[in-house]
C-alpha cells in the first residue's frame, strides 16, 4: 500500500479511448446540438452501441452510468480496488470534456440507470438491463426538498397506481423508462418515499413539454405527467416496507453514487475551458510558470494558476469519493464534498476563462461561452451547492436535519 493519486494504470486505456471519442465524435457536433435544441443527436446511437460493445467485452472496466453499483463481494477486503466507480468518473469527465449535454443524452447512460444500478435487486437489474432510464424526482412545488414529494403510488392488486407531475426529467422524452420517486403514504413522511421504474409507453404517462435552457441544450429536459399510470408491483426499487427508523436513507443512497458522477461532469467540462484557454493565452504570449511566484507573473497567468489549482482539488476530491465507493467505504461526506467543490469550481473556471479570453471567450465562435453555460447546471442538479454544504456541515458537526435546517 502506498499513497498514489494518479489515474490507475489499468484505466488509462479506457480514459484515452473516452478522450478520443469526446474529441472526434462529440466536439464536432457540440455546437450543432447547442443551437438545435430538442433535436435528437442521432450520431449518439452509434456511439451508444459502441459503448455497449465495449462494456460487453469488459474493456470498459465497468464504467458508465451503471458503474456505480456497489460490489457485494466481500472477499479480498485487504486489497485496494480500482473498480467501476473510479473508471466511471474518469471516463465521464473525459466525455464531458467533449460535451456535457451530449454525455447526458447518451442512450442507456441516464441517471435513472445509475439509480437502478444503485438500489435494484438482481432480478430487477437483469430485467431492466439495456433499457434507457431517466430520473424523475423534482416536482413543480419543490426542488431540493425531496421529502416534499406529492406524486403518489397506491397499491392496487399487483400494480401501483401513480399520479403526479414531474419536472426537470433529463432525457425524459428520449428514454425508454423513468425512475419515478413517489410516496406510498404522505402522512408517513420520508420513509414512505420509494422509487418505481415506469415504462414510457404506460398508459397515463405523458411528456407534456420540453424546457428551453441556459445550457446542456443537447440534452432534453421534460415535464412528465402521470395520470393513473399502472406499474407492476415488482418495479418498486428496493424494499416496499415503510421503515420509519431508516427514513429516507434507502432512496438517498443513490445520491452517494451519482454525486461523484456529476462532480466528474463539472471536472470534465471545466477542463475543456482550461485546456483551450491555456492554448489561447499561449498564443497571446502568456504561459504559466509553475516555479516562479504567481505575483511576479502576468495577472492572467496568476489567475490561471488559481483556476487550475481549484480545478485539481475538485478533481482529486471526485476521485477520492469514487475510490471509497470502489473499496466499500461509506462516502456520503466525500461525495458531497466532491460535488460541492467541483460544482462551484466548474462555474468559476468556465466563467473566468470567458473573461480571460475576452470577446473570443464570449463569442459563439469558440465553445468557451457554451461551457460557461453548460457548467451551471452541475452546481444545481443531484443536489445544489447549498444542499451539499448542508450535508457536509451536518456530518462534520454531528447535527440532524432538524437541528441544522
Amino acid at each position, binding site marked *: 500500500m502506498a499513497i*498514489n493519486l494518479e489515474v490507475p494504470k*489499468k484505466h488509462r486505456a479506457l480514459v484515452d479511448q473516452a478522450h478520443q471519442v469526446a474529441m472526434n465524435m462529440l466536439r464536432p457536433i457540440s455546437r450543432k446540438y447547442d443551437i438545435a435544441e430538442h433535436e435528437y443527436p442521432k450520431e449518439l446511437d452509434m456511439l451508444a452501441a459502441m459503448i455497449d460493445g465495449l462494456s460487453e467485452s469488459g474493456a470498459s472496466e465497468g464504467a458508465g452510468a451503471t458503474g456505480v453499483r456497489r460490489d457485494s463481494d466481500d472477499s479480498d477486503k485487504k486489497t485496494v480496488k480500482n473498480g467501476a466507480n473510479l473508471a466511471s468518473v474518469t471516463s465521464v469527465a473525459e466525455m464531458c470534456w467533449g460535451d456535457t449535454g451530449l454525455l447526458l443524452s447518451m442512450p442507456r447512460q441516464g441517471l435513472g440507470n445509475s439509480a437502478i444500478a444503485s438500489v435494484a435487486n438482481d432480478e430487477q437489474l437483469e430485467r431492466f438491463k439495456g433499457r434507457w432510464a431517466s430520473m424523475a424526482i423534482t416536482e413543480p412545488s419543490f426542488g431540493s426538498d425531496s421529502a416534499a414529494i406529492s406524486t403518489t403510488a397506491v397499491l392496487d392488486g399487483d400494480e401501483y397506481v401513480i399520479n403526479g407531475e414531474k419536472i426537470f426529467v433529463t432525457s425524459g422524452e428520449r428514454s425508454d423508462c423513468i425512475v419515478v420517486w413517489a410516496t406510498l403514504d404522505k402522512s408517513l413522511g420520508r420513509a414512505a418515499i420509494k422509487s418505481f421504474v415506469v415504462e414510457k409507453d404506460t398508459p397515463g404517462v405523458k411528456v407534456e413539454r420540453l424546457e428551453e435552457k441556459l445550457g446542456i441544450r443537447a440534452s432534453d429536459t421534460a415535464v412528465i405527467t402521470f395520470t393513473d399510470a399502472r406499474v407492476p408491483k415488482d418495479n418498486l426499487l428496493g424494499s416496499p416496507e415503510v421503515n420509519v427508523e431508516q427514513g429516507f436513507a434507502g432512496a438517498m443512497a443513490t445520491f452517494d453514487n451519482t454525486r461523484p458522477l456529476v462532480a466528474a461532469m463539472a471536472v470534465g467540462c471545466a477542463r475543456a475551458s482550461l485546456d483551450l484557454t491555456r492554448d489561447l493565452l499561449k498564443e497571446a504570449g502568456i504561459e504559466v510558470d509553475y516555479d516562479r511566484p504567481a505575483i511576479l507573473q502576468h495577472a492572467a497567468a496568476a489567475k490561471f494558476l488559481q483556476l487550475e489549482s481549484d480545478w485539481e482539488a475538485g478533481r482529486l476530491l471526485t476521485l477520492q469519493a469514487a475510490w471509497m465507493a470502489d473499496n466499500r467505504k461509506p462516502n456520503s461526506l466525500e461525495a458531497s464534498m466532491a460535488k460541492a467543490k467541483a460544482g462551484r469550481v466548474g462555474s468559476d473556471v468556465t466563467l473566468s476563462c470567458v473573461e480571460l479570453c475576452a470577446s473570443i471567450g464570449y463569442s459563439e465562435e469558440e465553445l468557451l461561452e457554451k461551457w460557461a453555460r453548460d457548467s451551471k447546471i452541475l452546481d444545481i442538479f443531484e443536489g445544489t451547492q447549498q444542499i451539499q454544504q448542508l450535508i457536509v456541515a451536518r456530518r462534520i458537526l454531528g447535527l440532524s436535519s432538524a437541528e441544522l435546517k
Partner: protein
Amino acid sequence: MSLISNLKPGGKHGVPSSESRDPIGYLVAGLNRLAQTDLLDKVRLRKPTEQAVFSVTRTGFKTMTTASRTFAKAGKGGQPGARPKHAAASGVFDLTPGEDEQMLVDVVTEFADEVVRPAAAEADKTCAAPDDLLKASLDIGLPILGLPESLGGVSEERSAMAGTLVAEALAKGDMGLAVATLAPGSVATAIGLWGTDAQQQTYLPAFSAEDGSVPAAALALNEPTVLFDVFSPSTTARRSDDGAGFVLNGAKSLVARGDHAELFVVGASLDGKPVLFLVESGATGLAIAGDPAMGVRAASMTTLVLEDVTVPADAVLGETDGSTYTECVRLSRLAWCALAVGTGQAVLDYVTPYVQGREAFGEPIAHRQSVAFMVANIAIELQGMRLLTYRAASRAAAGKDFSREVALARKACTDKGMQIGLDGVQLLGGHGFVKEHPVERWYRDLRAIGIMEGTVLV
C-alpha cells in the same frame, strides 16, 4: 540628511514616503518624542519598562559566535554521494499510507498531541522552542527522517511522502514548533539528496548522533526583498581571487533558529544561477539578528547577514546549473503545504466543538447555516489542500516530475489555508482574537504559507 527631510514622517514606522505632516501632526510627533524620553521615568510618572528579550524584539546584529563545532572533513571529495532510491510506484490509485508511514504518523501524532500542542502558546510568546521538546524530537528521529538507512536514517528508503505526512502531523500540534524541530532534518535531507561523498561523510554522522548533540541547522533561502523571487537571490557567490573557493555576500531572512545553527545551507547566485552553499557557522563574516515575525514564532526566526564569507570550493551542494536549487525549492514548498494542511486540521478540530457548544439566540451557533457552512467549507477546502499535497508528494516520492503538482498545492494551501485561518478566528468572534484560544496563532502561522521558501524540506 537635511533637516527638512529629517522632519518628514515617511519612510519609517510603516509610513509611506508620500505622507506629510500638518501643524497638528508636528505637535503630536513632538509629544511622542517627549513620551519616549526617560524624563517621565525620572519623576516616576511611568512604571518601569519591560525587559527586552533577544528573540522577541528585533535586535541589532551580532557576530555569529555559537560556532562550537568543527565538522571534521571525511569522505572522498568530488565523488558523488549515496543517492536515495525512489519508492516503486504500484500504479493503483490509493489513499492509504504505507505501513511504515502509518507507524511514523502515529508516533509523531502522539508527540504533537502530548508535547507540541501544550508547549505551543508559551513557545510562541517567547519565540523559542523549549529544550526538552527539541530533545524529544531527536529521540523520535526527526533529524534523520529524510535519510535512507545507508546514510544513518531509520527506514530503508527515504520518501517525500513520509516526510509530508510527518510534517502534517507535527503542524497539527503547532506550526512554529514543527518548523523548529524539522529544520535540522531538512539540512540533513538536503545533504542526503545532493551531497558529495565527502559532504555526506563530513556532516551527516552528526545528525544521527544519539547523545543529543545533533546540531541545529538551517536551510536559508528567504531574503528581505519586496516581491522576492526565490529563483533570483540577490545574495551572491563569486569565485575567490585565489580560486580556492567562493565568497558570499548578502542577507537571508526568516532563518529558523539561526542563532543556534551550526550549519547553514544558503542560496546564492553564482554566474546568474541559483546555487546552494554549505556554510558552517564558524565562517568569518557571518552576523545574525533576531527577526521575529507575525507567526511561526516558536522557530526563533533570525536574519543572517553574510559579508565576504569565504567558503571552500567543496561547499557547493549539488549542481551549479540551478537544477538542485529548483528541486530544493519544490520539496520545501511541499513541506510548507504539509504544514498548512496540519494547521488547517487543527483549526477545523478546534472550531467544530466550539460552534457546537457556543450558544446565541437560544441555540448552538452551529445550528445556523452561516456558521455551519463556514465549517463545511473549511472541511471541503482542507481536504482539497490535503489531496493536492499528497499527489505532489507521491509523485516526488516516485521520482516523477512534480513541479506542476506542487505549484497547484501551494496555491491552494496559500489561499484556502489563509481563509481557514481567517474563518477560524471569525467563528470564535471576539474570543478568537484573544490568546486564550489558539486560533489567533493559527491565523498568524497560516500567513506564512506562500511566503516562506526553504527552511523545511521533505
